[in-house]
């Protein structure tokens, strides 16, 4: 489903965040990308989502070579993914429901069907009943859940998640990770970056361990 071979990412300024990284992720996998801060986890997630382009190497997602994709094709590639960003990227001038509706508006759902789906997604992350609230009124864990609801509302086949447990206490973190495990159990491929290796035992994911931009 996702194949990277010999991926290198050099940022403007010359810093090599990834060097010769090769991996393969199959449909239905649950993968944790681990490593110290600055190891290149976020960079790898961004490459897969085509938010950054690799400097060299090839990256194939669903049979498409992402590295060679035209800019105008990127929106359609990204719709395969549900993206959860480390900083959530919620829209604070919109209600919880409107945040979740955004991906559906982008793909062009009718208002009624969109609302039904958005409420279902909010239900899955345990935010049903909060749909009118502004995101600012949510706790850190709840904001994370809202970001997840927005990522899954389009029923993507791949979830890409960057540091979902970063700012959370252990209990909230576990609750969040459980949500991703549940999605994985129904067949969604999950690629999740975390600097925190304490969760490996509980979820038994496949590991991509990064160290200074290289796979260990």
């Amino acid at each position, binding site marked *: 489903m996702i194949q990277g071979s010999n991926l290198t990412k050099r940022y403007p300024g010359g810093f090599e965040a990834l060097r010769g990284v090769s991996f393969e992720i199959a449909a239905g996998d649950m993968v944790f990308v681990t490593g110290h801060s600055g190891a290149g986890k976020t960079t790898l997630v961004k490459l897969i989502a085509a938010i950054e382009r690799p400097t060299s190497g090839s990256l194939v997602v669903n049979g498409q070579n992402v590295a060679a994709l035209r800019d*105008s094709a990127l929106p359609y*590639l990204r*719709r395969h993914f549900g993206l959860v960003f480390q900083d959530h*990227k919620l829209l604070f*001038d919109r209600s919880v429901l409107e945040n979740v509706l955004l991906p559906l508006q*982008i793909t062009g759902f009718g208002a009624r069907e969109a609302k039904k789906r958005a409420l279902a997604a909010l239900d899955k992350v345990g935010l049903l009943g909060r749909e009118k609230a502004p995101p600012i009124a949510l706790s850190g864990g709840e904001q994370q859940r809202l970001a997840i609801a927005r990522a899954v509302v389009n029923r993507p086949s791949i979830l890409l998640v960057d540091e979902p447990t970063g700012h959370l206490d252990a209990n909230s973190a576990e609750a969040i990770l459980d949500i991703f495990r549940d999605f994985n159990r129904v067949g969604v491929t999950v690629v999740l970056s975390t600097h925190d290796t304490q969760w490996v035992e509980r979820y038994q994911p496949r590991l991509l361990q990064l160290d200074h931009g290289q796979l260990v």
Partner: protein
Amino acid sequence: MNAWFSQHRAALVRAVRRLLASPLNTLLSLLVIALAMALPLAGYVLLDNLKSLAGHASGNQQISLFMADDASRKDSAEIESRLKQAVPGAWRFVPREEALKRLQDSEGMAEIVASLPKNPLPDAFIVEPGERSPEALEALRQTFSQWPKVAHVQLDSAWVKRFDAFVRLGRMVVALLAAVFCAGLLAVTFNTIRLQVLANAAEIEVARLIGATDAFIRRPFQYFGALQGAAGGLLAGGGIVLALRWLAPPIGELASLYGAQYALAGPHALDLVAVALFGALLGWLGAHLSVSLSLRQLG
């Protein structure tokens, strides 16, 4: 189809919401746009009225045919017989004595006329030809001036031609004005939308990250620009209509002082629709350019 429709409706709703969200800004932009459109529109209406006024006036076109100073009554009789043959239409002989008498009767001229050693005025014919196209009149003028003892032929419709030229110039000025103000309108929309794009940069970034096409991002702004342009156009048209209604009574009065009946013609409903559509088009274009540029800069 359904998806297409719901996307456009959502974009339209968001555009309306944005317009209503900052009423003061919206009002100011609308005023600027309306002003930019009102000026050329006013010029257009003015020209339209002048043209119809000229149409009224050109109904009684005359050719004045002046005999030479030394022409005798016999020469005049010769011309008269030629006119009989050559010209379908009416004509009238004005002997030099009658012309002088008329001049004397006009106010303030009596003393001047009295001080003249002899009658300076020639015999004249006033011809009102049946065929009144500018070409036919011009042809007649040519013919008359070939005739013996004819000193000068004056086409009284010359002013109509001059007026026509003036109207044509006016039309060019209005077109130029329209072009300048269109550019202004584009610039205003461009700038308004640019500020909005910057204000919504976070939303645009997120939308792009989760798969929005540029077309999707542009759409609400395009609707915004189009709505603003259309509203500005309607406001301009409405302003002109009101101004004309206000001007109509004094102009009617003025016309009646000259024994004429004249009512100002306002823009037609179709003109107003055209102006609104044109405003919408320009607004849409300005928004399109603005968002496209901003998106390229956002990378």
